[in-house]
């Protein structure tokens, strides 16, 4: 594959092009992933270069067809053009197909994820329960499972629970959809916070890989799922705060001890664990209150005439749950 593509060295830029990287990346998928950082096929330079190359291939093919057209003569001038056209189209099709199959093999190669899904149901169950049990050992690096099945399923479960919460609280989303918001929130939290924690641990030289942060944070969402499942159905603030502290705290402690056991130095430990615990606990707080009935009137009055994309509409809230300040704010919202 490399040899064949290497012969088509039609780059015109004086500084050379990304051609070499693309050719080298024709091997296994692991090498390809490294090169995609440099040559993401959607950059303008690459697209322009591809078009340039295809156009030049067309011209070359047209010239070649024009020079050897004896057998087309009997079909007349129309036949000649038709043959030329066919050949050109053929060349363009081949070039396009080659590019597409290369891109497909690069991006759609799911086999690189296969080892991370190699789990048994018993293992998943035990990891789910262990995510709520902090380990005492912080002087020796704790073993963190590097799998993605459990975290992925937990994120989807959280999406389902969030949908349920949004529906029961009657949230109205003006621009966007309920499903889009739920998926965006959950996946965004999981991916962004994992990357951020990995970045921080890279800065302070902690012994943890990206896969492990993804896995750790994913399993940490188990506590969130349990708390939200209970409190979206039983609306007691006191119960929520107790569960937030107990279950949220336990899962945070588990993640914190795992990271502590892999970090050296007081300040790095403080930085990493502080960030993680703050983000984790605040996320649970946000998930509970963002889709709760009482806050809707408050938000409506705060935001005023500028409608945000997630607009919450004031509802009729039973009076017994409001104190005087909230009631006045609610009245302000109603009269608007």
């Amino acid at each position: 594959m490399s040899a064949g593509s290497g012969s088509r060295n039609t780059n015109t830029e004086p500084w050379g092009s990304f051609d070499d990287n693309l050719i080298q990346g024709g091997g296994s998928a692991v090498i390809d992933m490294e090169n995609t950082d440099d040559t993401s096929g959607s950059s303008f330079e690459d697209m322009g270069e591809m078009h340039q190359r295809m156009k030049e291939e067309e011209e070359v093919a047209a010239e070649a067809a024009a020079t050897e057209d004896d057998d087309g003569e009997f079909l007349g001038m129309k036949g000649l053009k038709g043959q030329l056209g066919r050949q050109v189209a053929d060349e363009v099709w081949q070039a396009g197909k080659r590019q597409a199959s290369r891109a497909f093999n690069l991006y759609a190669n799911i086999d690189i994820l296969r080892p991370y899904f190699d789990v048994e149901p018993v293992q998943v169950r035990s990891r789910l329960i262990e995510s709520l049990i902090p380990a005492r050992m912080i002087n020796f690096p704790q073993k963190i499972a590097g799998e993605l099945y459990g975290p992925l399923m937990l994120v989807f479960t959280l999406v389902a629970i969030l949908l349920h919460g949004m529906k029961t609280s009657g949230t109205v989303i003006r621009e966007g959809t309920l499903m889009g918001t739920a998926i965006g929130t959950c996946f965004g939290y999981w991916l962004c916070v994992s990357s951020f924690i990995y970045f921080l641990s890279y800065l302070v030289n902690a012994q943890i890989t990206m896969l492990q942060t993804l896995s750790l944070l994913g399993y940490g969402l188990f506590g969130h799922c349990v708390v939200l499942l209970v409190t979206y159905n039983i609306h007691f603030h006191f119960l929520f705060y107790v569960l937030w502290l107990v279950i949220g705290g336990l899962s945070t402690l588990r993640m914190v001890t795992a990271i502590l056991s892999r970090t050296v130095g007081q300040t790095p430990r403080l930085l990493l664990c502080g960030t993680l615990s703050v983000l984790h606990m605040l996320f649970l707080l946000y998930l509970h209150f963002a889709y709760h009935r009482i806050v809707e009137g408050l938000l409506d009055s705060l935001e005023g005439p500028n409608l945000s994309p997630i607009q919450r509409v004031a509802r009729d809230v039973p009076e017994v749950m409001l104190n005087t300040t909230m009631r006045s704010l609610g009245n302000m919202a109603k009269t608007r």
Partner: protein
Amino acid sequence: MAAADESSRPFAGLSDVSISGDIPVEGDISVPVGPSRRDDEFSTLDEPVKETILRDLRAVGNKFIHVLYPKRSSALLRDWDLWGPLLLCVTLALLLQGGAAKGDDQSGPQFAEVFVIIWFGSIIITLNSKLLGGTISFFQSLCVLGYCIMPLTVAMATCRIVLLVPNSLVSFVVRLVVVTASFGWSTFASTAFLADSQPPNRKALVVYPVFLFYFVIAWMILTFTPTQ
């Protein structure tokens, strides 16, 4: 048909044929295995459109019956098609439209929501089962998951009829029972087809996302209230 004769006796007839240079020779020379397929192509090209459509409809109907009585047969898997899932998805999305909302702009996203949920959910479940070591192919899995939405679509139609009656508690109980039953049926039907393609100790890992998927759809059906 001359080409067919040629292929049965390769090159035998060419020795005494002289072709002048200005007569174009047309046609394909096919290998012996080829002719039967070419006959099939010609026959389906020449048949009336009604027959083609009826054949596809019969195949789709046959698969519906297999979903209704989920036995461990491979008919759904062998000739997969995506007509049935598309039909069911569009029907379900249309039925779920016009749901209760404070503003009118909720009805637009709902069709797209359902469509996206069904197709992306199916794709993710398929990817998951492939990553877990399943032997089923991508489109076969999509086909099975799509066809098994049928009980939920029937439940949605029933719910819409039940919602015409203004009594709230009885209608809610009836809808709950119907939706729960159809959700169980869908999950059972799809696992009857999908779980066989997995290693035996990992069936639960594949069944859970399917359960979640149909649960979300069942939840959307149950919480549907039409605009007043």
